[in-house]
């Protein structure tokens, strides 16, 4: 059935069952790459997106449940030409090894900065504690989030 969604500021209509996890609609119907399948169980955070500005695991969010809500993915934060302060900070800090977790990390960080624009390091650690990184890039990720907060504050 047709479901109308607000994704990254645009209204999009998709033909999917309402119980389809948002993740597959984003990836396959809307061809947005950023949200990733990692576990399908809300344990790893690779699929994290923002729904009305708050972090949400898209792997267990039925697409029918978010009609009328604003969904933001990594693509909606910024682009290569006009990166969001978080995206720029992750580039500046070279805060990735394989990078599969990074979209989820940035979205969880965006949620944090929405709530707390000037987080301390401990706040960042706590906010990202449920996002798993396997390569050991944690410290760079934390530095990138702190740098983004600083740059955003300075804007």
């Amino acid at each position, binding site marked *: 059935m047709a479901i109308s969604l607000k994704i990254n500021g645009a209204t999009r209509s998709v033909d999917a069952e309402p119980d389809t996890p948002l993740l597959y609609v984003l990836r396959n119907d809307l061809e947005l*790459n950023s949200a990733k399948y990692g576990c399908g*169980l809300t344990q790893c955070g690779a699929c994290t997106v923002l729904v009305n500005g708050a972090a949400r695991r898209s792997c267990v969010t039925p697409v029918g449940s978010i009609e009328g809500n604003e969904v933001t993915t990594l693509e909606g934060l910024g682009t290569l030409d006009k990166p969001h302060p978080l995206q720029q900070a992750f580039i500046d800090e070279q805060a990735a090894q394989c990078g599969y977790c990074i979209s989820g990390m940035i979205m969880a960080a965006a949620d944090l900065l929405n709530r707390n624009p000037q987080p301390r390091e401990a706040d960042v650690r*706590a906010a990202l504690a449920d996002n798993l990184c*396997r390569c050991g890039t944690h*410290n760079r990720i934390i530095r990138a989030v702190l740098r983004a907060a600083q740059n955003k504050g300075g804007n």
Partner: protein
Amino acid sequence: MNAPHLPRREFITALGGIVLSFSLAPKILLAQTPAQLPGSLQTNRTLDAWLRINADGSVTVFTGKVEFGQGIVTALAQIAAEELDVPLARVTMISGDTGRTPNEGQTAGSQSIEQSGTALRMAGAEVRALLVDLAAVKLGVAADTLKVTDGVIHAPDGRKVGYGELAAQADLKREATAKVRPKPPAQHKIVGKSAPRRDIPAKVTGGAAFVQDMRLPGMVHGRVVRPPRYGARLDNFDEARIKAMPGVIAVVRDGNFLGVVAKREEQAINARLVLIEFSKWSGGSELPDPAKMYEQLMSLRSEDRVISEKDAPVPAGAKAIEATYHRPYQAHAAIAPSCALAEFKDGKLAVWTHSQGVFPLRATIARALGMQPRDIRCIHAEGAGCYGHNGADDVAFDAAMLARAVNGRPVRLQWMRDDEFKWEPYGPAMTMKVKGAVAGGRVVDWTYDVWSQSHNMRPGDPDGINLLGSWYLADAKQPGPARHAAQPNGAGDRNAITLYDFPRQRTTHHLIMDNPVRTSALRTLGAYANVFAIESFMDELAAAAGIDPVAFRLAHIRDERERAVIEAVARAAAWKPGEKGDGRRGRGIGYARYKTVATYTAVIAEVEVNRTTGIVKVPRIWVAADAGQIINPDGLTNQIEGGVIQSMSWTLHEHVRFDRNGILSEDWMNYPILTMADVPGVQTVLIDRPNERALGAGEAAQGPTAAAIANAFAAATGKRLRELPLTPERVKAALGSPLVGTPLNTVRYPVDAASDFGEQGR
């Protein structure tokens, strides 16, 4: 029963056998022995296999090594750009494609810089010289008067010619000579600098960066259903029910291989779940008893080799001690379950894969499917970090099976989380026994024995087909045998031979030939466990001798670079000779030179032990590394720090849970890893040696980190833990503290007990 230790004479005879078998190599090779070329030029000998100069002045670089987050493609681009004198931005990298790139086997063992980097350095220097010669003719001047800047060749009189203008004349279809000397390090402008990673911008903006992100026209989605136990048989399943499900295109069964293809991804996932529910399986093999796992593994058939031996008398009155260490099965546990795309069309198969070796994968898929390798193309596309041989190759084969069933339509298949955890080949469980003696502050005796299953069951084995799905086909294929690997690389015996200068020592590798639990290459192979054991025991010997652990190590070292790296970490951590723990906090050191010939790494860890909960934390950690010439300092730092943190996770948290009926670790709840909250800052010291060979570093820090943490725990508490990981349960048992609550790391999550093996559990 294990085979007895080989006495020395027999050992030499066995070695003679190896030499003999090499001399029986195909005669044609012997008849026309080609010149030895450096790095991977030896096996991919023409210049155009590596480099092409394009008419617009850009350069295309081909490498058989592939990216999985280690930054290798960026580092190789730096090397090529440096030798060619072109800007990095003008270099396009093509990697890991059986249709286009050199065959460099596996991207493994921290060897890419040494193999591919060396080839590109030599080929780059030679192509640059070739272009300069062409320019000299064109401009009518002597070649040695010409200068190259940013891909433009300048004559002293101001005339110039760009690489692009010479591209058509430059004949690179010729064998490399390796006679052109590469630049001296002092002239490097690109190598040695922290060039930003080429792959990161796409990864932080949602670009198509991974194989998971590929979408081919007409693509459909596949999923596979694995048996409830290793080796179980599929008795029957409800095919009609699955075929009636929405979107289902095909149910694929071949013997005990079972999969489904559907129009949409969630439809394939749903069909898989229903297939699991409505399929009946029987038989399959029992796993070892986890409570007696190490004893059971050591009682299996093994092939034993003495890999190092040195004799000297033991002085009277030497103080002797011995200890046994264990490392459990540990998972690669990539953040992404493995994924592949496959398309079968007109008898030809294309596979997009994050395999570490597209050529061995192609050869093995060909054998498994009865195809010719020339009819298969395997193309690398990035997956998540793999840390060794995970499900990448297996899912590629699975995708090929499904694609063949829906001829003409490309199939995308990503394993589910439990597929990856339960079916990937783990890093093997290992036992290390060490006996040693000290006299006069020196180690005077050292006997080391290591027991391990195979660490290399990758595709490419000539005597077997190492692809999971193929073992379950009606025409079932068999995996290859466990094999010893020659030192210094080794496998289970990687870093088993002590690096220290002991007058008397003997090292034996007991290669377990059976595979009760599926295993293969996990980052460092045996080095992680061997360095953990050797370096733990060095501390035990230092304590027996009453000497500070840092001083004790330095007393047994001859190599200046080994000494420098240990001193560097001690300085960075402000190590105080003879420093003591306080029952709760303490520090320890671990050292190794990876594979005996690669990066030197020393680590000092500080631990904080909660004596009530048994939880060990590492609030601070220092690492010093000497990887020879540094190609990209930021990339090297990232690799070293990542290695430290991943090893901390292995050492404190990780072991595959199973019972006799099957694997219980199926998600992150029952295979917990280190999280953001517990990751300390890592203080990293890099020692650059621009005039030395660049050494592999991706696996250098893991062993020393494990040892440093274990030694810090012993320093803090006075008790030594010899079995990994350092779980709260073991900590409390060692400290004799009362059990309080359920230890976090050893929670047995409710799992389907599968009391009836005939039914697949959830």
